[in-house]
């Protein structure tokens, strides 16, 4: 990537205390986000995608979770080391987040305009009148019709797609450098999803915000992202440009994730082969952190070494990195 790096996560480890002891839900994770790019984090639920986002936002659930090691470099600062006050300045201002469920992430007792205005007053020091005026402009920018009137409506008076637009307006109110979108469209219909994707693309072009898109939908990845990182059991298993990874996935988990979903084609054949399954499910938290490949139990290409040694990440050119002992053999 020629662009400059704005977020650099190095050897991040996040531990959760469970009934079975302490588990590393994020296990030595390193990645970078370039200015203005879109990076997709992909994996099944329970692979640590959302926890990664929470760690970057300084929102790891306390006291059951804690950042046990590593650093999150944002500009000249390490977000792991800075205090809660500084984090509060950064959240919503430099790094902001939109969530999966647009109903539960808005406050039901305040109007949407007030909720957007609050961000502007807190971070930009605007007064009430200015903040409200700016909230109207933001609602207009995210495509809410008749924004001047809708600014005083409440979340329950809006449809799911409109609520997600409000969340986006709120998240982009301060023109953040990074927007983390955690499954922003899973609760929405496909036509609304397409509208939201287009909106994100346009706003990104205008503001130069980098987007970290968390999803399990390869379609969404292809639609929005330039680079992608596949996570499994708290570790990065594959990373590269979307074109490289989708066209030539080298990790068996990535291959499975791409081929296990029936994708729409314009020219369906009469014959339908069974879907390629990834057997089994994500390992339990107590098995995280073991010194082996954690995907070995579900992998079709497993060899003895997979259960004995933790795979190291190898570069296959142009930033396509894969952590699998069999990756070279397979290619």
């Amino acid at each position: 990537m020629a662009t400059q790096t704005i977020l650099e996560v190095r050897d991040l480890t996040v531990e959760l205390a469970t009934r079975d002891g302490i588990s590393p839900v994020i296990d030595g994770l390193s990645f970078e986000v370039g200015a203005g790019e879109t990076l997709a984090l992909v994996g099944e639920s329970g692979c640590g995608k959302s926890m990664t986002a929470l760690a970057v936002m300084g929102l790891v659930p306390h006291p059951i979770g804690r950042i046990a090691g590593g650093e999150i470099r944002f500009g000249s600062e390490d977000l792991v080391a800075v205090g809660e006050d500084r984090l509060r300045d950064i959240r919503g201002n430099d790094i902001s987040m939109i969530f999966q469920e647009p109903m539960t992430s808005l406050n039901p007792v305040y109007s949407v305009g007030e909720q957007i205005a609050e961000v502007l007053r807190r971070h930009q020091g605007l007064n009430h009148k200015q903040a409200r005026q700016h909230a109207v402009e933001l609602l207009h920018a995210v495509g809410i019709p008749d924004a001047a009137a809708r600014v005083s409506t409440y979340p329950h008076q809006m449809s799911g797609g409109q609520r997600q637009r409000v969340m986006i307006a709120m998240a982009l109110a301060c023109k953040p450098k990074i927007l983390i979108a955690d499954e922003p469209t899973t609760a929405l219909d496909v036509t609304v999803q397409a509208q939201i994707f287009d909106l994100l693309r346009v706003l990104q072009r205008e503001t130069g915000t980098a987007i970290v898109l968390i999803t399990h939908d390869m379609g969404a990845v292809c639609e929005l992202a330039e680079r992608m990182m596949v996570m499994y059991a708290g570790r990065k298993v594959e990373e590269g440009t979307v074109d490289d990874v989708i066209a030539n996935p080298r990790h068996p988990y990535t291959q499975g994730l791409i081929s296990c979903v029936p994708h729409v084609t314009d020219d369906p054949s009469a014959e339908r082969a069974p879907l390629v399954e990834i057997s089994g499910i994500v390992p339990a938290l107590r098995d995280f952190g073991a010194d082996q490949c954690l995907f070995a139990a579900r992998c079709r290409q497993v060899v003895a070494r997979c259960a004995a040694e933790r795979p190291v990440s190898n570069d296959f050119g142009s930033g396509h990195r894969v952590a699998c002992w069999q990756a070279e053999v397979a290619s």
Partner: protein
Amino acid sequence: MSDQPAANLLTVKDLKVRFPLKSSSIFAPKRYLYAVDGVSFSVTQGQALAIVGESGSGKTTTALAIARLIKAYAGQVQLQELDLLDLAGDDLRQARRRFQFIFQDPYSSLNPRLRAADIVAEPLAAMAADAKQAIVDELFQAVGLRPEQQRLFPHQFSGGQRQRLGIARAMAPKPQLIICDEPVSALDVAVQAQVLNLLRELQRQRGLTYLFISHDLGVVQHMCDQIAVMYLGQIVEFADRISLFKNPLHPYTRALLSAVPRVDPAMRGKSQRILLQGDPPDPANPPSGCRFVARCPVAEARCHSQPPALRRLASGQQVACHLVSDDAVSPLG
């Protein structure tokens, strides 16, 4: 079961479901919302028919009305010789063996106080214990659960396993028709493939007929032989799976298909998306002409005044749009 592949197992005629709306005063005339407004289709024995559409289009309500889980206001539902909407009491209970339901949410659709074996055996209440056990054993194997898991309670299963349990329960009374309402949308991607493969395999082995409700067009393309597209309580297009994806006719179907993100790096940034503006109109006040008129990119004057009827074209596709020509050319080209 009959050997004629063309026989219709389920025929739905002009089905309507309405819900009363709150009125402003007790003297005001009663107003109704027609969630399903004149839906007709038939499902061929041994095939899978999908109803697709956005949330609020009435697809789940249609399924619930067919299964007699909510009351239909008008219409006819014919399961072979049985008129389902006319049945009541014991006759209905007997008939329920022939159509079963698989629900979307595997967490809330299983009784948390029953053991897995009892959940699967529940539809078989009248049978002798050992006959019941034999069926439960067989079903556990068929859906890929281990025999020792029969003793467990639902919370001890993963989401995918619970959905397998739901499938086993639906199979227990040896139904002819299974209505699957979003059977995989609550499951993780990798588990979805396992459940979809299982459903296809069971259909092949047992000659089952599926009525499949889904908003996921990829799943529908993989699972179903015929597809009905619903918009605001009505079917706007009905076609076999190859025609529907190759040559979608109705502007709404076009828009719906173009909105699905494609997993093909060669296609990136090249999709010809038909972007629909806004949200679907309020179903309590549907537009007087075509229901899609406000969002349709090619609407004409007559679309605002005359509601288009679903008509069958020479190609066999059925479409409800004034602007689709008789030789199956979409107004969008």
